[in-house]
């Protein structure tokens, strides 16, 4: 019996590795942006893979990347809650009080210095930051983001719009106001 159990756990490890190790970069990128620290990202990703392996029996095929990223994301938030609880502040008001820091001559974020842009993204609240990481940095579709965050697609779109608006405001980029008509 034990011999059999050992063999099956070996093949379980193999199929787990085959499904999830190819998504390690995506997992790390998300953790790195959410924790903003390479060592912490390392710890969180290891913890997330450990959890994923524990729950592997409940994974019935399908989109393995979304499944993994959902676990990485949850692990990140648990970690933040424990280690940096002050960072998880829910934005209750839609108003933004962000002092513009960008160069007024710059019209598009494309023109911003990369280091400056990275700093601006890092300073966004995690819920804004993650949605930009999912869509613009990782290139995921709204559907995939909805699966990972367990939000409706419409909410994904409005959160993304809010995050982009906030980032543009922080960069001092003026957006035309709504005109009637």
């Amino acid at each position, binding site marked *: 019996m*034990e*011999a059999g159990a*050992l063999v099956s*756990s*070996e093949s379980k*490890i193999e199929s*787990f*590795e*085959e*499904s999830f*190790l*190819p*998504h*390690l*970069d*995506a*997992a*790390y*990128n998300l953790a790195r*942006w959410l924790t903003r620290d*390479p060592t912490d*990202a*390392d710890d969180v*990703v*290891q913890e997330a*893979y450990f959890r994923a392996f524990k729950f592997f029996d409940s994974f019935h*095929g*399908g*989109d*393995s*990347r979304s*499944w993994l990223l959902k676990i990485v994301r949850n692990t990140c938030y648990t970690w933040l809650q424990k280690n940096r609880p002050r960072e998880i502040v829910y934005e209750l008001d839609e108003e933004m009080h962000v002092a513009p820091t960008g160069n007024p001559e710059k*019209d*598009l*974020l*494309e023109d*911003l210095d*990369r280091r400056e*842009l990275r700093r601006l*993204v890092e300073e966004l609240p995690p819920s804004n930051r993650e949605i930009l990481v999912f*869509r*613009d*940095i*990782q*290139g995921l*579709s*709204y559907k*995939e983001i909805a699966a990972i965050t367990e939000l409706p697609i419409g909410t994904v*779109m409005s959160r*993304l*719009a809010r995050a*982009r608006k906030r980032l*543009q405001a922080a960069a001092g*980029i003026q*957006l*035309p*106001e*709504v*005109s009637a*008509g």
Partner: protein
Amino acid sequence: MNCEDVRTLLDGYADGELDLVNHLQIEQHVVECEDCSQRVKKTAGLSKALSDDAFYYRAPNELREKIRISLGPPEREAAMERWWNWRWLPALATAAVATAVLMTMLVFLLPTRSADDMLASEIVSAHVRSMMIDNHLTDVPSSDQHTVKPWFDGKLDFAPPVIDLDGQGFKLIGGRLDYAAGRPVAALVYQRRQHKINLFIFPSDSTSNTPNKILLKQGYSVIHWDRSGMTFWAISDLNLNELQEFAQDLQS
């Protein structure tokens, strides 16, 4: 549609995520409205800036190893020795015979999977393998189609078409030999942002062109088509929309 209505959908529009009806309506509005057109431009500029590889943090190599080690039981081989015992032998032999009989029966009883489905699994495995092993991705790393194409000469019994799509945002990064469908095949590797695309090419059984077959498998987007006597399989962790764009660019 006025600006107020349009504004809630502008991000979806800029991301190419709207349904056709909404997409066309916004498109129409943006042509006429300078303010909204500015917003789309700025949103697209932001997405473009952030899609730069410099913003994508790759996992350090040691992390992969650390995870592997943490998953595996400590000293796998030592564990094997501990469990192995000669008294298992008769039981194992009986089990082996029983398994063989069962397998033989299953072969006749199980419905066979379609050839396409099996090939799709093979393609996914080949893609995963190429991503897992360092340096396995390309045998001829080059962004020049005139370097990649002749490299296959003499290595394959067909000449795969090598198309430059740099202008469309899909950078050719090289080619390699792979094995699928029971034969050596050409694998071309393209890249968009940090996403690699494997394009497998080999002679097709028929000479007719087929429309794109699209599937999602293990989180990968896969598109398959036949054209000019060749079979093409494109696979990537890129989202399906962009991979379809890739397939269209190749076929145009």
